[in-house]
């Protein structure tokens, strides 16, 4: 058993290691070391907790068993999950953190002595407030993440589920949560605690169902942020520095990522959260006038011919590449191009794909070196000097309407200037629009060649034709 002072120092240390873990992500070189810092911080936190309890009874064995059982499941998932399923994975994991926070809060409520918070029915007021906030936020995180997970997995329909009076209902429920916390604190009655939990689960569910499946990444980040604040709340209850620091880190991280995504889509956070985007827009403008106008379409042979005669090609991957799992095929195509002395680079839009950094992970998986991959600001001026833009499964992120039409929902969003290339190749299966549900004028341009096919299949065919 170690003193409270010593364990406080170790918890601080583990908090600092978590900071360093995030700091490591500032560049790929330092990122692996950063992850090790994170692991070390976790080991320290867990070890110190054992030592400061100091009671190595039978319970201890069970703790180890549960850690190992959970750990085995976690490790199994981590190794099996395909990279394209990252959004679902993150959503699923969040739900677990939320639920764990709820369970810890329940346990602390039932047995406050173990946490030195008072006795049942007579818990310190401050602790009770922190605990109930932690439990409520945890419950919202849990049910919200579960819905997000189901929508992303396609188990639940991705289209927004809306009904009349939704927003007033949510407002009523949210205020009832505050009321319940107040009642709980003044009466200390377990009933209010259970009702609070039930209502929190419900609101998490209700908040997320009206949001379209494609908006889930923003939701996930928001829930990530919530799970951070829940952890911080529990941290205050447990008087644990490591938890408080971590909660603040995770809370900020989620908030910033949601902000980056909203900004990249040029939508306000409230617009996303109030929901109903995904479906309506799609039906609204999806079939505007794409039938009438002529497009030039080609096959793998045409594409291969164009690229062979190019001296520089810029690849623009998008969500379709992830759907088709075309990253490996793409990498092979690029290898062939390089053998023919063609300069190739990749241009990644900040919101290409469906989650921040989505394309980068997939390209990394396919062994694309990260110094061939460029951010929008770094590469946008190079399109004017490149011969071919190879747009594979991307759509919205190239749509020039964002620059020209103030009426468009994506107006003001920065886009990749692919149209400045001598020729543009679009690999997609049809003329149907992407995430934002709006038509793309580029399809009908003089210098555009549409390659209608599954991204993976088309890329493989092009590679064959290149040889």
């Amino acid at each position: 058993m170690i003193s409270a002072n010593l364990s406080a120092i170790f918890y601080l240390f583990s908090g600092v290691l978590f900071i360093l873990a995030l700091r490591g992500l500032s560049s790929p070189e330092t990122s692996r070391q950063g992850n090790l810092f994170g692991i070390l911080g976790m080991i320290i936190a867990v070890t110190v907790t054992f030592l400061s309890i100091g009671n190595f009874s039978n319970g201890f064995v069970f703790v180890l068993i549960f850690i190992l059982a959970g750990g085995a499941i976690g490790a199994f998932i981590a190794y099996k999950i395909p990279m394209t399923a990252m959004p679902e994975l993150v959503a699923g994991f969040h739900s677990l953190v939320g639920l764990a926070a709820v369970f810890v809060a329940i346990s602390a409520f039932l047995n406050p002595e173990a946490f030195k918070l008072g006795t049942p029915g007579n818990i310190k007021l401050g602790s009770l407030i922190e605990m109930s906030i932690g439990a409520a936020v945890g419950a919202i995180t849990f049910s919200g993440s579960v819905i997000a997970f189901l929508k992303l997995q396609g188990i639940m329909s991705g289209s927004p589920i809306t009904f009349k009076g939704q927003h007033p209902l949510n407002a009523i429920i949210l205020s009832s949560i505050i009321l319940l916390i107040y009642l709980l604190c003044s009466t200390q009655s377990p009933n209010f605690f259970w009702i609070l939990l039930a209502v929190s689960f419900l609101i998490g569910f209700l908040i997320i169902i009206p949001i379209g499946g494609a908006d889930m990444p923003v939701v996930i980040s928001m829930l990530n942020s919530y799970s951070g604040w829940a952890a911080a709340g529990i941290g205050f209850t447990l008087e644990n520095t490591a938890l408080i620091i971590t909660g603040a880190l995770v809370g900020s991280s989620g908030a910033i990522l949601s902000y980056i995504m909203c900004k990249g889509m040029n939508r306000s956070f409230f617009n996303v959260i109030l929901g109903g985007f995904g479906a309506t827009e799609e039906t609204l403008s999806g079939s505007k006038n794409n039938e009438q106008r002529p497009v030039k379409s080609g096959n793998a042979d045409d594409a291969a011919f164009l690229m062979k005669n190019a001296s520089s090609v810029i690849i623009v991957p998008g969500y379709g590449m992830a759907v088709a799992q075309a990253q490996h095929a793409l990498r092979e195509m690029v290898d062939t191009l390089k053998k023919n002395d063609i300069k190739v680079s990749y241009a990644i839009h900040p919101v290409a794909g469906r989650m921040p950094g989505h394309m980068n992970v997939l390209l990394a998986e396919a062994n694309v070196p990260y110094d061939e991959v460029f951010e929008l600001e770094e590469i946008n001026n190079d399109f004017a000097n490149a011969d071919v833009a190879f747009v594979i499964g991307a759509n919205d992120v190239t749509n020039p309407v964002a620059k020209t039409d103030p009426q468009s929902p994506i107006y003001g969003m920065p886009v990749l200037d692919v149209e400045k290339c001598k020729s543009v190749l679009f690999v997609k299966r049809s003329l149907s629009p992407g995430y934002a549900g709006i038509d793309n004028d580029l399809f009908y341009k003089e210098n555009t060649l549409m390659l209608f096919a599954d991204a993976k299949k088309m890329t493989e065919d092009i590679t064959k034709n290149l040889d």
Partner: protein
Amino acid sequence: MEIDPLIFRLSIFILAIFVGYYVVWSVTPSLHTPLMSVTNAISSVIIVGAIIAGLSGNSDSIFDTSSIFGFLAIALAAINIFGGFLVTQRMLAMYKKKKKDK
């Protein structure tokens, strides 16, 4: 005239928010997906609370209601910790620089 520890914790919390703000903005966009998974892992440090909860039963009844919730929380947090760190590691291992000899 002693200062309440709560105020110190509040100070730590507020400063940690500043640190979080800066440290996250300094993450390179290409690593935003690993950022999501690693924050997932570290937020499971809530396991320290779960362990206290799990060991809260007395030696006669290891499994009273409160410690059962504790054990469940331990398992959930452990899934996250192992899952989160390992998947992050798996992702990060894929980020490679161009080989020099090419």
